[in-house]
């Protein structure tokens, strides 16, 4: 595991030395900034605030914008991880050093996760702004960020896995987007299937939309944590096995 640190540093370096990371972060912040502006504008012009909807819960839950940006951002973030190293052959140089497969996978994963967190960090400013205009439930905010972290971590793990299963960055991007979109659409099934059926249960269980609604209103459900835990660990496990398998290919 001592090889984790150098690889982690190099991955971050490689990501931020190219324009890709900056382009992604800029796009992300523009979309989120506009989203936040529209929400605040909407709530400011509402005569009577009904129900328990707050700008906070609307920002993180009950919105398609969150998932749209994730679908657009996660695949390009992870596509390079392994696909590029395999195409250019640097994976042989990397694996000839005394490194373990698990350290390589974890370092690459930690690097994209760090980037993801860095992308979200400026959005805390929005909460600070909200907090100045009125009371803000910081515990609900923490829960919302936990949700964002878990969803992102799960998506990135899927992306890393796709990147390890193909040599083509394009294919890795397409596969990641397909899996994430498929999962999202399956989750939408919650709204079209009849309540009480098994299908409805399954759809509700995997629904990112539903998960984020919960997290955004301050509900931390252990089922969600287990779900995303599995969504992180399973792809990373497959990735580690794939890296091992190249040695025997």
């Amino acid at each position: 595991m001592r090889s984790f640190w150098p690889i982690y540093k190099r991955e971050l370096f490689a990501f931020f030395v190219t324009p890709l990371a900056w382009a992604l972060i800029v796009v992300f912040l523009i979309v989120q900034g506009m989203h936040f502006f529209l929400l605040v504008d909407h709530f400011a012009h509402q005569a009577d605030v009904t129900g328990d909807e707050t700008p906070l819960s609307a920002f993180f839950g009950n919105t398609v914008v969150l998932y749209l940006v994730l679908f657009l951002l996660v695949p390009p973030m992870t596509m390079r991880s392994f696909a590029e190293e395999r195409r250019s052959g640097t994976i042989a140089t990397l694996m000839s050093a005394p490194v373990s497969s698990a350290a390589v996978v974890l370092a690459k994963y930690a690097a994209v996760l760090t980037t993801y967190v860095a992308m979200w960090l400026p959005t805390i400013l929005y909460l600070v702004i909200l907090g100045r205009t009125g009371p803000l439930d910081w515990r609900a905010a923490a829960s919302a960020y936990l949700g964002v972290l878990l969803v992102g971590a799960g998506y990135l793990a899927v992306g890393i896995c796709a990147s390890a299963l193909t040599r083509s960055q394009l294919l890795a991007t397409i596969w990641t987007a397909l899996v994430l979109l498929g999962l999202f659409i399956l989750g939408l099934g919650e709204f079209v299937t009849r309540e009480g059926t098994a299908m409805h249960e399954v759809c509700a269980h995997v629904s990112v939309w539903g998960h984020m609604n919960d997290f955004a209103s301050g509900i931390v459900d252990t089922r969600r944590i287990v779900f995303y835990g599995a969504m992180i660990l399973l792809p990373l496990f497959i990735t580690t096995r794939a890296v091992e398998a190249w040695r025997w290919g």
Partner: protein
Amino acid sequence: MIRVSHLTKRYGGHVAVDDVSFEVGRGEVVGFLGPNGAGKTTTLRILAGVLGPTSGTAHIANRDVVEESFEARRSIGYMPEAVPLYPEMRVVEYLRFRAELKRVPRAARARQVDEAMQKAGVLDVAHKRIDHLSKGYRQRVGIADAIVAKPPIVVLDEPTAGLDPNQIRQARALIRELGREHTVVLSTHILSEVEACATRVLLIHRGKLVAQGATSDIRAMRQGAGIEISVRGDAGAVDKVLQSIPSVATVERLEAPGPATPPVTRPDANPMARPPARLRVVWAGALPAGDRGIETERVVAALASAGLGVREVHPASGSLEDVFAALTSDSPESALAEPNVTP
């Protein structure tokens, strides 16, 4: 330092390396020689711990490359074929990263990176991005990476491929230099390459180790393989004379179109009016190197006394094909007409 026994690697039905065994001692510079697709790269990848063998074992500095992969990899510096590097890094950044990855202690890192850059001759491009480097410099960065952690064993896969003649000369000098401090294994399909760098040669063909020996033996074999003569006169008579000399194994007509068999004498033409034919005479394998001069004289005398005009005689330096033919029962045509299968 390196002990390989009964190493086999299969890709599906294709056997890339077939029951290969050899040893490399401390301080040797060993050249892996063979046509493309012979299994050189696969063998080196197994030694480097990047690829696992199907069966058999390989030990690096007494560590099994499969069972103790981690320790084995610490004793080896590997430069893969085509030298893959991270294009977006600067040379010094890349080498520092590699040194840290190879567990060079923090205190020694900067010094060892400097030493490696100096030895490999990349100090002047230390702050250039790798994607802005020429092929020759990239190759040297690869070598610097291989030696940065001061491993006892350095493995270089095709270290001079794609370089221009001047760069090749420099690379060979560098490899000879490495041989003073490291045990070096390099692969190539160019015979003169191993002659220039290696002390010992392993000849690999179709995944099998077909021969091994000191480079000086291979060189002697190659240099004294035969003679080339320019002789004017009747082709049938020339052949008759040459075949009567026991030390001559084969006679080959150079520049003769069509089959290698001598053309039938045409009765209409005056044999002495024809331009001289160039022949390559290959000595029998049993001929000792010291007798080759005498035998050359005998051939010339025999041709002259038969009334044939000898215009030119010089020793022929054999090619990889000749060495293959001399070392193996395999015909050179089949040895080198392999398709390029590099898994």
